[in-house]
């Protein structure tokens, strides 16, 4: 079964410095039919203007993955982690029992990222942070495992792959094993 959710049906927000598109209910965008899919709770498609960002704010019990499409993201948190994340890198932050962090555009161009929230199996885990470079990120025609077995480990039965295709390139996506 295939269901299509067109881009025009996504939620949106325009804060000037931040243009967001929401796959699922988030902030002031609430659609009871779009509250997530299993443990996948948030997919936000954000464009953050130069100099813009989110000040220190808390999270709890969420596996938070940020995939940078263009630009540079600067991260800082109250656990002492600091980092700049670019296009071929993925950031993982386990909020666990509680973490406070900030995110801002550290580059000279708009920052385009996807932020993904996945509910963990286990509540109250110790906060954790990982930032990983994927050398194969730009390869064409190959699924690059970012999160899950073979990628960044999270506390959930979930995976995220990146796939870049050239024009006319074809691939078969196999159904996951039952």
């Amino acid at each position, binding site marked *: *079964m*295939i*269901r*299509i*959710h*067109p*881009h025009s049906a*996504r939620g949106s927000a325009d804060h000037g410095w931040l243009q967001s*598109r929401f*796959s699922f209910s988030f902030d002031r965008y609430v659609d009871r039919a779009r509250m997530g*899919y*299993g*443990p*996948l709770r948030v*997919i936000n*498609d954000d464009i953050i203007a130069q100099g813009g960002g989110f000040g220190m704010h808390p999270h709890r019990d969420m596996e938070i993955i940020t*995939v940078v*499409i263009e630009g540079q993201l600067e991260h800082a948190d109250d656990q002492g982690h600091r980092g700049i994340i670019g296009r071929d890198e993925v950031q993982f932050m386990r909020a666990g029992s509680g973490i406070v962090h900030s995110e801002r555009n550290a580059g000279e161009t708009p920052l385009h990222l*996807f932020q*993904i929230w*996945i509910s963990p199996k286990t509540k109250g885990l110790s906060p954790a942070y990982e930032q990983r470079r994927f050398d194969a990120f730009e390869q064409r025609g190959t*699924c690059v495992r970012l999160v*899950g077995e073979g990628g960044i480990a999270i506390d*959930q*039965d*979930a*995976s*995220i*792959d*990146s*796939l*870049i*295709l*050239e*024009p*006319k*390139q*074809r*691939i*078969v*996506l*196999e*159904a*996951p094993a039952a």
Partner: protein
Amino acid sequence: MASGAVRLGEITLRSGDEAQIEGEAVNLEALEEAHLLIFEVGL
């Protein structure tokens, strides 16, 4: 989640479109350069 245009069976996905696929293999063909994020979750 697609960026660029891809054909998914008989369906065309364009930037920002999402396809939720349950329990079947699918054929993908890029109509232009495309970048997809593919999520798999246990329910």
